[in-house]
């Protein structure tokens, strides 16, 4: 799962080319014409993982062009899809290479595929094998039958943790612009030490929402990601208050910090729903309709408070 989600944001652009494997038909070991055909994406990490777990076996590997994106996200975009599969089957001459008419796909590729269309257009029937590549050997040994465990999704602490760096890279530009603006405004209004405090608080709140919220996900109460993020942000505000000497701030500024930081954290934790494999889009929409006005209101109120707090000091 980790590598499925790892490049959920493969657009981060750093060394993208290193993550590409040329699409086409590969032989692992010395497969016979009866050997199974496993289908995967040309995302380097997935490809390497599949090759590693299948080492010592004789199977065919059909790599689809997903532009370096993992199976799960590519299926959502449709690049790991019926059209590409049909094209690769034809282009690789698969029908001449193998005598059977079956292709074996990862379960998380299913959102991009219409199995009955593939059958109609290529004569190959689609089998959905496992969610994790690690289960492929057992699947093959099991007479190509999927056990309930192979169909069970997981979202472990590690699987959540590996998503965080990408999320951070994605918001760097926003951080630079908003953080810079905040720093300058505070610098002009209240001087350099207040500006530094405001900037650190903002960055901390973002980090809380992006990293702490997702990593501690199952331990924070509630089902709503916006609420989880706000709770994490509230905890951060309290810690920040203690560490940064909040007792010395004027009360409007104190109040402002307890409004703004949770709002910022809340938004970023809510944004993490794009990387999970259990949140529905309708649920996220509902959360946003409810939470965005509240978050926006909290930010506006805290800006006013901070202004009042610094001006009437």
């Amino acid at each position, binding site marked *: 799962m980790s590598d499925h989600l790892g490049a*959920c*944001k493969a*657009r981060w652009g750093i060394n993208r080319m290193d993550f590409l494997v040329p699409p086409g038909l590969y032989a692992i070991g010395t497969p016979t014409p009866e050997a199974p055909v496993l289908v995967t994406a040309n995302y380097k990490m997935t490809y390497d993982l599949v090759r590693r777990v299948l080492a010592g076996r004789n199977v065919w590997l059909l790599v689809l062009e997903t532009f370096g994106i993992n199976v799960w*996200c590519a*299926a*959502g975009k449709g690049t790991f899809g019926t059209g590409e599969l049909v094209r690769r089957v034809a282009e690789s001459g698969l029908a001449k290479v193998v005598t059977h008419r079956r292709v074996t796909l990862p*379960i*998380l590729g*299913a*959102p*991009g*595929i*219409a*199995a*009955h269309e593939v059958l109609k257009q290529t004569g190959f029937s689609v089998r*959905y094998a496992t*969610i994790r590549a690690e289960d492929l050997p057992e699947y093959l040994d099991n007479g190509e039958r*999927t056990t309930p465990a192979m*169909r*069970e*999704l*997981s*979202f472990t602490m590690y699987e959540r943790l590996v998503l965080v760096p990408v*999320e951070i890279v*994605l*918001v760097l*530009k*926003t951080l630079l612009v908003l953080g810079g603006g905040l720093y300058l405004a505070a610098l002009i209004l209240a001087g350099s030490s207040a500006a530094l405090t405001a900037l650190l608080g903002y960055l901390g709140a973002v980090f809380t929402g992006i990293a702490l919220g997702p990593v501690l*996900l*199952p331990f924070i109460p509630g*089902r*709503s990601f916006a609420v989880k993020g706000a709770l994490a942000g509230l905890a951060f505000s309290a810690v920040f208050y203690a560490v940064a000497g909040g007792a010395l701030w004027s009360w409007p500024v104190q109040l402002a910090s307890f409004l703004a930081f949770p709002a910022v954290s809340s*938004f970023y934790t*809510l*944004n*993490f*729903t*794009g*990387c*999970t*494999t*259990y*949140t*529905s*889009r*309708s*649920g*996220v*929409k*509902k*959360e*946003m309709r409810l939470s965005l006005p509240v978050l926006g209101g909290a930010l506006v109120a805290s800006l006013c408070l901070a202004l009042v707090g610094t001006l009437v000091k």
Partner: protein
Amino acid sequence: MKGFRYLSNVATLELDQGRCIGCGRCLEVCPHQVFVLEARRACIGDRDACMECGACAGNCPVDAISVDSGVGCATGIINEWLREKKIPGLGGGSCG
């Protein structure tokens, strides 16, 4: 999924049992075990577990399933809303 549960009563998943031919494909592709097969017909056993990935709908050979699937992160949905209203988005990171 064990240990994780999202909001209740939001999923847009619909199943037309009259069309179902009981092939079992939806049970095979769903990563959240939403469907069960009863008397050779699929039925929705756990709608609230649905993450709206669209795998079942796309793989049902008789089009018996419908679900509103698509981008699921906040930034992606904001950009979508802006596009619908024809307001140019702020860009920003999105898995879209």
